[in-house]
């Protein structure tokens, strides 16, 4: 419980401290072109609100988040591609602002982890199954089968 709440509380405290309890995206920010606006929303969802605990700028009501939202829209209106917008924002605020970090040397472990764990696990499971199957006793010979049947029959 505190788990979630701690974050919630902090997010809220920060939001309140910023003394501007408005809602995240405000009507005056919305672009006229719906396609462009949708791109702005999608990009915003992947950008971190720098002064919040763990919110995207799309969810946050902090003034800094609003500034970033406006910046994203400005760049989009200027004709930037999505990558160019992100590149521009990262060049100004650092990679910390990206909720999905770039793939690179510094994040190789992060991105590779799921694939590596899955691969190692699959190989281990496979090897174990093979090895144990190989170590299993061979099937009975026909003579042994006959003897067992005989013993069982006599036992009845």
């Amino acid at each position, binding site marked *: 419980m505190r788990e979630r709440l701690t974050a919630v509380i902090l997010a809220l405290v920060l939001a309140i401290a910023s003394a501007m309890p408005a809602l995240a995206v405000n*009507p005056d920010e919305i672009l006229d072109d719906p396609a462009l606006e949708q791109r702005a929303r999608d990009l915003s969802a992947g950008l971190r609100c720098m002064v919040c605990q763990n919110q995207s700028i799309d969810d946050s009501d902090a003034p800094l988040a609003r500034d970033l939202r406006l910046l994203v829209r400005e760049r989009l209106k200027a004709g930037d591609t999505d990558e160019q917008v992100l590149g521009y924002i990262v060049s100004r605020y650092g990679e910390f602002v990206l909720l999905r970090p770039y793939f690179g040397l510094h994040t190789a472990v992060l991105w590779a982890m799921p694939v590596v764990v899955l691969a190692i696990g699959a190989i281990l499971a496979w090897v174990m199954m093979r090895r144990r199957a190989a170590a299993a006793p061979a099937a009975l010979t026909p003579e042994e089968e006959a003897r067992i049947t005989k013993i069982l029959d006599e036992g009845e």
Partner: protein
Amino acid sequence: MIVELGHYFLVLALALAIVQSVLPVVGARIGHAGYMRSADWTSVMSALLVAGSFAALTYAYVNSDFSVANVWQNSHSRQPLLYKYTSVWGNHEGSLLLWILILALFAALVAVFGRNLPADLRANVLGVQAWIMVAFLLFALFTSNPFERLDEPPLEGRDLNPILQDIGLAIHPPLLYVGYVGFSITFAFAAAAMICGRIDAAWARWVRPWTLLAWVFLTAGISMGSYWAYYELGWGGWWFWDPVENASFMPWLAGTALLHSALVMEKREALRIWTVLLAILTFSMSLLGTFLVRSGVLTSVHAFATDPSRGVFILAILTVFIGGSLALFAARAGTLRQGGLFAPISREGALVFNNLFLTTAMATVLIGTLYPLILEAFGGAKISVGPPFFNLTFGPLMVPLLLAVPFGPLLSWKRADLLAALSRLYFALGAAFVAVLTVLGLTAGGEVAAALGIGLAVWLMIGAFAEVITRSRAFSGGGSTLRRLAGLPGSMWGTALAHFGLGVTLLGIVAVSAFEREAIDNLTPGGSMTIADYQIELVRVGPVRGPNYVEDVVHFQVTGPSGNRFAMAPSKRVYTARTMTTTEAAIRTIGFSQLYLSVGDINADGSLVVRAWWKYQVILIWLGTLVMVAGGCVSLADRRLRVGAPRPARTRGKRELANA
């Protein structure tokens, strides 16, 4: 006086826990029955003492005794009574006491209901549980004492954090904690089994009900927390991949894997090493979650310094328990013989597949949560890992797992026929295809991903009942189908329900993600906006005074597509003690969907920003988890799995035949 008594009880509980952490373990070692039995009454006594201590703190809260620092910081005399009770665990110290109470209660439960466990195993389980008790009691008494007094008692308290003043605080934390802490028993069983050197099918049969019990509560706890955040935070998100959420999700993933692998161990004596390791891992994840949340590392790496004693203390607990159990594991793993053989395509193989993906998913969540901390700690770049990362990695990992779920229960042990299993799933497959085509048709091919997701959900939901249908030979005529259905073992129904619930949750997730609608507008009284065929008119704004807050309630009149009209009233609330503002959303449930309204501040010209969402089929997310919980309960009620009652010798043969 009562407060001091509570403090004293806690110290007494520590003394008892210390005795219990040594005596029964020594007894088991030297074969002294009296020493071993001592654990039974010490664990019941400690549970009573901690309960008394908890009651004392509750007493202080209910009577608003502000001479107690903890009460002063987190309570207010004008709080409604319910919140005076829930305030007890709405803070670090109190919630830690709840943690310890549940830990003690679980030990007492094993002492009372575990009579049929071998004496040495029970003694060791209770001994290990006492080690955990000692660690957390020391932590509470030395760094987080809830009974500390203030020299000059203030007249009024500082109020509970407004966000927490909700019925959610009464439900979510206790459920979550029972789940979290419940896995301590699984851990204690694993450690005790390694100490006794006896890890077999019987062990798995004893440990499974406890795992299931913890899992049921953890599932319910996470689900309720998700719904609480959904309605309380005012922007309608239900899962944020927040580190604190991940902290509760990781034990859930590990615990779910454990439930499945223990099944293999119980039935076939295979996967022993792995099951024990998972039992350790699951509780390690609970401890890690506790560390992440309570040490302050999550806020920022620097916040560690604000209260180093707590962080360091939990880190020490974490290291000792995880390191110690892994060392014990390393020493003992070599002595474990592997059990039954199986082909890759078999029930065992399917459960290995399940474990592979669940564990990888857990590792993904773990690395995503810890990586930014680790990178920064080693002087690397400051990066963020948020929802887009998890959606991109966790999502694809779930697809093969979910596709495989309906197959699992249909495969026979040792060696199975995949095609034969598939032939029983034709109906589910057909239904899934129809669902995909329907969604594609309705959206004119615009929502391919959503169509596939909904198809997968339908596949899960219908496929979940394939085993029940096959076993009861339903639809094959004959009046005895109902009788056969009723005669099926409860655990089979449990599995079917749990898998069905998973499908329902997935359906909700896909539907709301793809078909949610949102509208944002600036409205003045008399103005209106439209969302998903609902016309929303702002009628008026009225101030209201609550017990410890004032609020502006915004009254809306909503007109539905069939001309039906209803009122909705979200508000903006200011809690006076902390002058903190909260957004109280208004939610109207229509079928499985919800209309969600949230308002911003009132501008100088009387206008205000209104955000409206049409949350399509959103309730299915939580309904599905409730069905999963119901499945767990049905399974738990099954004779063979009833907590501490594994006495199946006479009926076992028959059941086994039914399962064959």
